[in-house]
């Protein structure tokens, strides 16, 4: 478990925005927290997995994909803002992600 500082928050946001700008060939300035990953960026679900791998390595996270999968079913992600929030929760709670709802 890691406490989410302003620095981590900004770093996660920057990584997510840069990732989508690069993969979807759009300017970062075109992306905001309400941007729809599918409708606006033509993104795909694999991108979510790739980002998780990036953050797992960067923050040395102990989290199983199935835990994220279960959480994502209950808390669907459609926008960039929601995706950033979920990545922060993953970093903060790792394998205890599901305990947030309890």
């Amino acid at each position, binding site marked *: 478990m890691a406490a989410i500082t302003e620095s981590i928050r900004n770093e996660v946001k920057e990584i997510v925005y840069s990732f989508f700008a690069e*993969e*979807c*060939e759009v300017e970062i300035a075109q992306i905001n927290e309400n941007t729809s990953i599918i409708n606006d960026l*033509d*993104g*795909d679900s*694999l*991108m979510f*997995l*790739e980002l998780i791998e990036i953050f797992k390595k960067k923050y040395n996270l102990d989290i199983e994909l199935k835990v994220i999968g279960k959480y994502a079913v209950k808390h669907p992600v459609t926008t960039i803002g929601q995706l950033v929030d979920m990545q922060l929760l993953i970093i903060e709670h790792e394998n205890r992600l599901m305990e947030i709802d309890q």
Partner: protein
Amino acid sequence: MQVGQWFTEIVNRMSKEVVITGMGLISSLGLSLEENWKNIIAGKSGVKKITLFDASSLATRIAAEVPPEFEELSRHYIKKRAGSQMTRVTRMCMTAAKLAVADSGIDFEMEDRLRCSVIMGVVNTGNSSSEKDTTAQNTVFKTMTNSMPAWISLEYELMGPNYAVNTACASSAYAIAFGFEMIKNGQADIVIAGGADSIINFEEIQGFNALYALSTANDKPEEASKPFSKSRDGFVIGEGAGVLVLESKDHAIGRKAQIHAEIAGYALTSEGYNIMAPMKDGEGMAQTIDLAIRNAGISKEEVGYINAHGTSTELNDRYETMAIKRVFGDRAYQIPISSSKSMLGHTIGAAGAIEAIITAMSLKNGLLPPTINYHEPDPDLDLDYIPNFSRIADFRVALSNSFGFGGHNATLVLKKH
């Protein structure tokens, strides 16, 4: 179904004509239909020394590779994200499809997408040791053989059936035949059909060398593919993509589309004989050609050109010649025949579509492409193989033959529009 309905169905089917309204072609001789056609009519060879990998330890070190400028072209047509999930061959297919759709002038916003289909001949996707940037996350997408039709269907949001067919070297001819059938039966208005392939990689060439199927004339690559010649010593591997937009004639006329040629019919047969060799004396090939002519409702006298399978192997060229003689009798000597593989090499799963496109262009332009490298006739093969130079001709019906390992045979019948 009542007799009246049944009769109406048959009349509808008979009256529905299938036409080609778009074509996209990528090969060793060019990255557009126009560039390819110009080079084919000029009798150029696309065969060179292999550059895609280190072939120095192989018996065969030559192939007909797509020019490196393809990478730039594909970036123009395919988004980076999607491109990273495709092999180079799949990108060839996708690019050729986009060229074909652009050529057809179709706006899918105006179409009933449930009545638009994609059928591709796919032997493999080329996710071999020659493929770059394969990762654990894109391996499945790069390898799955349905990826080519799937990506095309995704690109245009088409909702009719999309699928791949694998019948080795006849695959994309089969795809065209199935597309023809869907339109003829009223199941689709538009079918994007074709194929793409590349087996220019270490393991496949080593494998075909072990079967003594490939030419080893490494010193003069451009002269290595010599179908119907006495000195032929096997086929030369080529790569590329050919995609056609098939459409019912009524639908094409309704949207004032250009029509390149008509598909009059086809035959698909199996030889049930041998996993590699064609049936002795070309019996299976002859049955296929004969059946295609009958299915298309044309007479043998109408056939004015045959785009042969013509691989440059001992058996294929011998048996294909025998088959044509068996079907046409003495008239076989009057029918011009050529092998596009003399210039493009054997593009395997793409060959049927690429050669159907060349056949359509021949009909449209009244020009017969040559069989190049024909300098030493085989005394047993004595038909008119359009040696070395293209020829002007006035003809209305042409055949395109494709025969695959495993005994998969296909003959397409095309008509001038």
